[in-house]
């Protein structure tokens, strides 16, 4: 997993609430057995018509936002399924950070496993950044994970909260399986204790 430290980039505004995982990556793309290559299918049914032509109004099809690395989105982003294909598609497209007032739990967790930073900010901050993002390619937003700040192009700085362990893993690009396997002795002893406590499990 790639580290996430700081990012300065174009932010695409997506003011819609409840952007669900089926919008982010429709099911026909879940048939892959790989993690890579899903960027071309990101937001497929919003981005392309049934003939596969780009829908010009869709934000990521607009020239200013084709290279966006940040999304600023409405409430409850990523609701719906557990498909990790959603963050895989975002990452493959080039999105490394999503800013919203709230995220669905599973999607939120999945982002951290893939080097994507989901930032939760209050409504007024998201509104400010949404307006900033709407200015197009000349308005760059900076996200600093170490400092836990998002800076709008007008210099306004918003501080965000994040779980310290998740932050540590993302800053250092750590693989949690390797971290957990260091605790194998604790897992072994839990299992043997469980054999006594709950032997039928």
């Amino acid at each position, binding site marked *: 997993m790639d580290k996430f430290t700081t990012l300065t980039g174009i932010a695409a505004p997506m003011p819609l609430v409840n952007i669900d995982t089926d919008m982010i990556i429709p099911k026909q793309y879940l048939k892959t057995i790989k993690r890579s290559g899903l960027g071309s299918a990101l937001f497929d049914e919003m981005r392309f018509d049934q003939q596969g032509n780009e829908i010009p109004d869709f934000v990521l099809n607009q020239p200013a936002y084709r290279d966006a690395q940040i999304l600023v989105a409405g409430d409850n982003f990523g609701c719906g399924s557990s498909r990790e294909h959603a963050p895989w598609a975002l990452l493959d497209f080039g999105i490394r950070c999503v800013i919203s007032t709230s995220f669905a739990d599973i999607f939120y967790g*999945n982002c951290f496993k*893939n080097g994507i930073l989901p930032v939760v900010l209050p409504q007024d901050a998201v509104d400010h950044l949404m307006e900033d993002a709407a200015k197009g390619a000349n308005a760059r937003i900076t996200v600093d994970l170490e400092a836990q700040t998002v800076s709008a192009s007008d210099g306004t700085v918003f501080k965000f909260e994040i779980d310290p362990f998740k932050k540590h893993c993302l800053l250092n690009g750590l693989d949690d399986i390797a971290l957990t396997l260091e605790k194998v002795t604790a*897992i072994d002893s839990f299992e043997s204790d469980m054999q006594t406590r709950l032997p039928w499990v």
Partner: protein
Amino acid sequence: MTAPKTLYDKIWDAHLVESQPDGTCLIYIDRHLVHEVTSPQAFEGLRMTGRKVRAPGRTIAVPDHNVPTTEGRDTHIDNEESRIQVEALDKNARDFGIQYYPVNDIRQGIVHIIGPEQGWTLPGMTVVCGDSHTSTHGAFGALAHGIGTSEVEHVLATQTLIQKKSKNMKVEITGKLRPGVTAKDITLAVIGKTGTAGGTGHVIEYCGEAIRDLSIEGRMTVCNMAIEGGARAGLIAPDEKTFEYVKGRPHAPKGAAWEAALAWWKTLYTDEGAHWDKVITIRAEDIQPVVTWGTSPEDVLPITGTVPAPENFSGGKVGAVKRSLEYMGLKPGTRLTDIAIDAVFIGSCTNGRIEDLRAAAAVLKGRKLAPGVRGMVVPGSGLVRLQAEEEGLAQVFIDAGFEWRLAGCSMCLAMNPDQLAPGERCAATSNRNFEGRQGRGGRTHLMSPAMAAAAGITGRLTDVRELMGESV
């Protein structure tokens, strides 16, 4: 004396391997269910790092999401990508030595239906699966939730998950349900009240008389949609009905082990005075048969209602409703019962069990699908299908003009060939009405099996109570 605990607290504590001062915990996982769509990359990860499956005996695999539901699928799947995923699961199950129910096994079915059916799901367990509807298993008083593929790999390799504890939320349904109102109406009504983010960061415990009165299958329907309310998991304390359901299942404990298990299961309830971070109370008698009108499961109204207008909402929901109505092809003020449908889908992990099929068949018996309406019944497992055939339900569906399919997820997420065409409108017993969910441009109205059957008969969304008479 220890502080009073919720059911969630008790299960959490019983599975805590380790906790850090910042609240990051390592939780032991008792059952890991695996399907073909969200697992290939996880197994690939194990191969690349030379890791093994730590507890193959706790890991159960079944293909369900993209398998066709038509005959002949055991020898050939036309769609190459789907076939490759099913073959990959087959190989991964074999290579890593995990329990496996292949597509030609009568016990194959939707992962959340076969887990309980086979007795893999037991009270007090932790159950995970790379699928958000894992919350279904909470009906047994098991802490069950969906995980992403990276976490699937983490559980395969370590049999644990790194977690922070969620908050406790109580959803109480007091009193008794009125006739024609079902578990599906309860769970939709709750989401209609709390919104799709109302449960975010919480584990919900459903309680109250109306929940106690539900069968275990009805409880599964309720917990199944906890995720649509944003909750990490849904739970219902186990009781005699739970123990009765579990007893004698192939993987349930037997003999002395059963007695020991039962003794512990009987301690699995929320203590008097336990702390709730959030409480929602709904009177069962206020719940009507409901349907969804929009593209979010929170877009719920009683069937007697009318399509709302964007102006009825505030904030970001105004734009979302405008978009929804356009997508759904609906005008504000239209009576829900005036909405004509093209298809009926009965099945899914929400409503693909035998009682669901019985409820739909009770409405359909002696009646037929309205002209031009396509109906599809997809039993949740091969065993449900067999039982429905033995009980004569299959014949009721066939006589009414429904297609009688093989088990799988089918048109709930339309990964297999079972899909809506653009603009087609479906009365569905599944769990999500998202844009494109049942096929690009497809329009989904969520409802109970009895309501879906009623819609099939009249060809429009229908209050099932109008059809309830001698036949129901």
